[in-house]
């Protein structure tokens, strides 16, 4: 922090009042000079200290966010091997053209999308329902709120390792329950859709309670008179939910959708640790390999950091496309209302 201004402390004993508004004719010329100096310092302080206050964040962000982001783009135009990460040889757009012909990349992109949808849509719907119940007067409401954060306190690593066992094909708890109610055991590892559902379940389990709290906070901020006038108009509780609660929550819903989309685009630890074959391929047939996992496989298993960089940038571009689609849809929805 180069600009420290604590030297501009108040004059203290000298009795100089607010440096900015010196009283006319107070004291000898000597102290007037002092006051003028202080006032200049004070102005400088007011002018520049805001920048000093925000600069640590931006410096750190440039170092660990912006610079790496751009450098990833630069590295994606090179061949770089993990074993010698500083030796880069220029290959132009070859990493990108390879990606376009790479069926594993598009497979991972599709899996990321489907896992994202399977994990996000039910999660947010359940969160909304839970929030609605929590918004009633409840006994032990704090208890319920804290309990539903327990999965959020559990790490991806711990949660994934437990769910691998629960979803075990032969001895897992879930297949046992299915068996007891007369359903054939499911191969949660090797079947494409069931494995994606299992991976999504880990995500749903960890995040539903958190999102419920966010919806609850937004519900509590809805002004009471909106409900009163709706009730006066004869709206039932369901009608109130659909015509008062949901519209008021629209910004929050959009916010959770954006955050969940970003989160879903990055899924990595869950499919990595869910894989019983202990590889980074997302199952024997790549059936639940996400883009984040494919990036890791290319960069750290196959040791092609340049190609992994190109995957990273493609992820970013796809995310932007999804973001634009999201935005357009939400504008349409708003316009139709």
């Amino acid at each position: 922090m180069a600009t420290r201004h604590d030297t501009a402390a108040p004059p203290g004993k000298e009795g100089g009042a607010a440096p900015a508004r010196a009283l006319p004719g107070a004291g000898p010329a000597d102290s007037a000079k002092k006051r003028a100096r202080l006032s200049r310092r004070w102005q400088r302080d007011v002018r520049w200290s805001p920048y000093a206050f925000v600069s640590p964040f931006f410096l750190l962000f440039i170092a660990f966010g912006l610079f790496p982001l751009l450098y990833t783009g630069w590295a994606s135009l090179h061949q770089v091997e993990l074993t010698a990460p500083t030796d880069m040889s220029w290959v132009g757009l070859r990493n990108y053209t390879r990606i376009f012909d790479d069926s594993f990349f598009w497979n991972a992109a599709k899996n990321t999308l489907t896992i994202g949808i399977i994990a996000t849509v039910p999660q947010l719907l359940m969160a909304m329902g839970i929030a609605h119940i929590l918004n009633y007067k409840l006994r032990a409401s704090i208890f319920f709120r804290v309990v539903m954060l327990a999965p959020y306190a559990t790490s991806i690593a711990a949660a994934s390792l437990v769910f691998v066992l629960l979803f075990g094909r032969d001895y897992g708890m879930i297949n046992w329950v299915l068996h007891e109610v007369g359903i054939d055991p499911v191969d949660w590892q090797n079947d494409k859709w069931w494995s994606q559902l299992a991976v999504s379940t880990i995500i749903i389990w960890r995040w539903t309670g958190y999102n419920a709290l966010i919806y609850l906070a937004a519900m509590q901020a809805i002004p009471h008179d909106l409900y009163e006038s709706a009730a006066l108009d004869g709206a039932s509780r369901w009608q109130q939910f659909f015509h008062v609660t949901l519209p008021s929550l629209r910004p929050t819903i959009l916010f959770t959708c954006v955050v969940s989309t970003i989160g879903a685009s990055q899924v990595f630890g869950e499919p990595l640790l869910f894989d019983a074959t202990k590889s980074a391929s997302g199952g024997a047939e790549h059936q639940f390999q996400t883009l984040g996992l494919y990036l890791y496989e290319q960069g750290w298993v196959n040791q092609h950091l340049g190609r992994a960089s190109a995957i990273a940038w493609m992820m970013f571009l796809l995310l932007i496309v999804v973001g634009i689609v999201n935005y357009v849809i939400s504008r349409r929805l708003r316009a139709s209302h």
Partner: protein
Amino acid sequence: MTTTVTKPPADAVPAPPKRSRRPKSARAGGQLHAGPIGYAILALFTIGSLFPLVWTAIAASRDNNRLAQSPPPFWFGSGLFDKLEVAWKDANLGEAFLNTTIVAGISAVTIVVLSTIAGFAFAKLRFKGRNALMLIVIGTMMVPPQLSVIPMYMMVAKLDWTDQLQAVIFPSLVSAFGVFFMRQYLVQALPDEIIEAARVDGASSWRVVWHVVFPAARPAMAVLGMLTFVQTWNDFLWPFLVLTQMGNPTVQVAIAGLGRGYTPDQSLIMAGALLGTLPLLLVFAVFGKQIVGGIMQGAVKG
């Protein structure tokens, strides 16, 4: 007059808005009691939230052969503490706990201090480019971490920081969410008049931060500190790339390493997962109410 700067009167420090919001939250749903169906759904949800955690402990208390039988165990065996001891040693968890506490502690303290100062500037100070800079802060929340991982890995390799804690500490010091969170809090919780008063008394900006902003922001700082600690504690991708199980692991790296052995002892893995999760569960059990309040407070204007 300086005394008014160094010691703002107690009543000048605003109560956190969380509390003051309570009385007027007489919303429609809030007045009605939840019915039995509501409680039933919540009970189901509670079981769903807790069952995997409880079952982790059950599985950790059984030996590996028992887990390869059907039906799976539903109640505790007798081997829990032995397994925990073995997992503690095998996964290098002693070192992992120390490391993770260091990393998460440094990260939490740094992020809280920097975010409070920056959040104060965005909330209460007028300067050119303020709105544009705030938009950039929010925009940086959208950038996936995968985009910065490769160059950072190159840097770490070049500096020879593989398996060293500083490789994990430095990148964990940036939090756009923290800046945003503190800004949202200070906009409401810190009245302009107090800052003006301190200014009139001739306090420099740094004095205002130290004697006015920090005391007023304390509740939000505590919440942000806890949220950051939890997040850093659970961070997986980056530590997994630069640390290994035997060289300065964090807890997540250590327990993930248990799961990736070639002849996995499932109950040992569960013991490791349990040990890695317990400290945070304890934090949530003790400070759960504050954490819930913090998450909800940060959400309203999100």
